[in-house]
């Protein structure tokens, strides 16, 4: 009977119910959309960072990441590579030599990071074909091929097939030079194909810089990136004895993690502010509804409804209203979610500029929406409890109404 009365009470003042219902539904729907967009942007950014740093896990000579010079080497890299491929949870492995130096022509030179890579291994780490503007990604047509950024090529005045001299410090700190031929030009974009980087074949750079059977870095891509800390922990047990450091991507770029946490905090604060405004409105409206029904509450009390059951009546009304509102809000949130999946937001177009986070370009990121079920459930439960809490004061007021006084109301 309480539920029946509560349900019918909801529809006594349809316009008021519609206003509260809309406020809750839109706030809840908006919150779900914000969560979807935020979670997708975090995922996109994480993917971009993983691509940019070269894997979920990075293995170097111990101390390299703090002081990146040629003195830190991963020895016997082929053996390490083979071990890592057999490690549970590992999807792909790529070893690299990272050098710093100059790309030069007869006329000019340009500072750059020179990466020695095995092109086939790197395909699992970033999709460079998408970024090729001209030429090929190590097409096999030239000796000593080099793939570089379009802007760098323009600065140097070189095109496909032209010669570029790479000058870099070798493992002993001496200057080493090599002649390379431009094989492909890539656009500056998210991932490792940004400007100021050039790619050459691993074996060539290994010989040129005197790395022997070593490398600067081994990048590891995992089947599930969320397992990175667990896999890193396992690897450290053996690799620390070999003088190697094992970093997860978030340990390598902690600024980025801080950025996500800050953004999450702002999202929560924003949602909290919206909900406080909505809740104040709901409390006010429910209080009005209670005060309008003083006489009726007095009647219910006179007929034998205990104060607890009168409070329960108000709370049941609130719960029903909240459930209806949240169902509609869920529809709004899902509609926004699917719209964002299909259309998305091009961050570069919105910002009108390149976006860089922690020194990594994220300008071509298109934000869609992603449902993190856990966050949606926690958010939904929080909204439900918040809205129900907003009726606690009106419900308490209703329980405090003395029946004799309430019955005199309106007389």
């Amino acid at each position, binding site marked *: 009977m309480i539920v029946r009365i509560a349900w019918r009470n909801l529809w006594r003042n349809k316009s008021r119910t519609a206003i509260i219902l809309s406020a809750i539904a839109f706030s809840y729907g908006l919150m779900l959309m914000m969560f979807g967009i935020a979670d997708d942007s975090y995922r996109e950014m994480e993917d971009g960072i993983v691509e940019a740093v070269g894997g979920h896990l990075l293995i170097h000579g111990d101390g390299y990441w703090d002081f990146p010079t040629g003195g830190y080497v991963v020895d016997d890299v082929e053996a390490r590579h083979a071990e890592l491929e057999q490690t549970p949870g590992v999807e792909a492995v790529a070893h690299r030599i990272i050098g710093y130096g100059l790309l030069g022509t007869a006329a000019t030179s340009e500072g750059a990071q020179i990466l020695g890579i095995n092109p086939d291994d790197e395909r699992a780490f970033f999709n460079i074909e998408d970024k090729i503007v001209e030429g090929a990604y190590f097409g096999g047509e030239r000796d000593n091929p080099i793939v570089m950024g379009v802007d760098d090529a323009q600065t140097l005045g070189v095109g496909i097939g032209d010669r570029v001299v790479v000058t870099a410090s070798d493992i002993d700190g001496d200057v080493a030079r090599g002649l390379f031929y431009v094989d492909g030009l890539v656009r500056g974009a998210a991932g490792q194909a940004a400007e100021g980087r050039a790619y050459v074949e691993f074996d060539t750079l290994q010989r040129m810089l005197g790395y022997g059977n070593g490398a600067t870095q081994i990048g590891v891509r995992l089947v599930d990136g969320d397992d990175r800390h667990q896999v890193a922990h396992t690897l450290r047990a053996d690799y620390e004895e070999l003088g190697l450091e094992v970093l997860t991507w978030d340990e390598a770029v902690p600024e980025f993690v801080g950025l996500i946490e800050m953004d999450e905090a702002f999202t929560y604060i924003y949602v909290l502010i919206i909900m406080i405004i909505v809740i104040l409105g709901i409390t006010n409206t429910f209080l009005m509804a209670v005060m309008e029904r003083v006489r009726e509450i007095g*009647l219910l009390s*006179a*007929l034998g409804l*205990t*104060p607890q059951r009168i409070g329960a009546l108000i709370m049941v009304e609130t719960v029903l209203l909240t459930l209806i509102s949240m169902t509609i809000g869920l529809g709004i949130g899902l509609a926004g979610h699917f719209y964002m999946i299909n259309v998305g937001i091009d961050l570069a177009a919105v910002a009108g500029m390149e976006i860089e986070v922690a020194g990594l370009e994220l300008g071509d990121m298109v934000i869609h929406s992603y449902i993190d079920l856990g966050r949606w459930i926690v958010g939904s439960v929080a909204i439900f409890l918040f809205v129900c809490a907003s009726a606690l004061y009106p419900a308490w007021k209703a329980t405090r109404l003395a029946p*004799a006084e309430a*019955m005199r109301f309106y007389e």
Partner: protein
Amino acid sequence: MTDDMKIEDPAGDRALIEVRDVHRIFHDGAVEVHALRGVDLDVEAGEFSVLAGPSGSGKTTLLNVIGCLDRPTKGTVHIGGIEVSDFDRKKAAEFRLRNIGFVFQAYNLIPVLSAYENAEFVMLLEGIDREERKKTVEGLLSEVGLEGMFDRRPHELSGGQQQRVAVVRALAGHPMVVLADEPTANLDSKASEDLLDLMYGLNQEHDVTFLFSSHDPAVIERCSRVIRLDSGEVVADERKGEE
């Protein structure tokens, strides 16, 4: 009284309702208003009585105190031998539910419930099963002439019909006493007469005690006992047919 607060043996050797030296003082800011001043009253089971008096005489206040809707500032009220004047609000509500039926002057019905639902409301709260509710409520609603109106909401009923539903609701839970506060105040003379006939008939047939609060001459005329109040005191207690 049983655990669920239902009075099973109302009479015994005591009056059904015993009011002793009841005072009720209201505070309006610094001003004290003495609504009741040492009222003593006994009401026997099966009576058809009225608290009569002008506005402000204290009749509604006394009815509220007897009905556990209000607590006396001083004095005691016993119903069926149970002292009800010190009940807290929860206990008072439970006692009202099990033992007292109410008919008020206006706004008597729950607006969102139909006539049938209003009538069965008290029985539902008491936890009486569906079949018994149906039998009792349909029987009583038909008895008071409301066949075919079971599904009507209060705003679809006349004032007299609404009061009849309220009477059915008051009786449906088989209370020891029905307290009726100005039940005819908003009715025309014909509707008032019909309602009084109905309640008197129920008093006679079901042996339910009725205690009215009213200044309506028609009510006073029909009651077998008239307790007159003035300025919060009982100034006369007339039993018709007694010399």
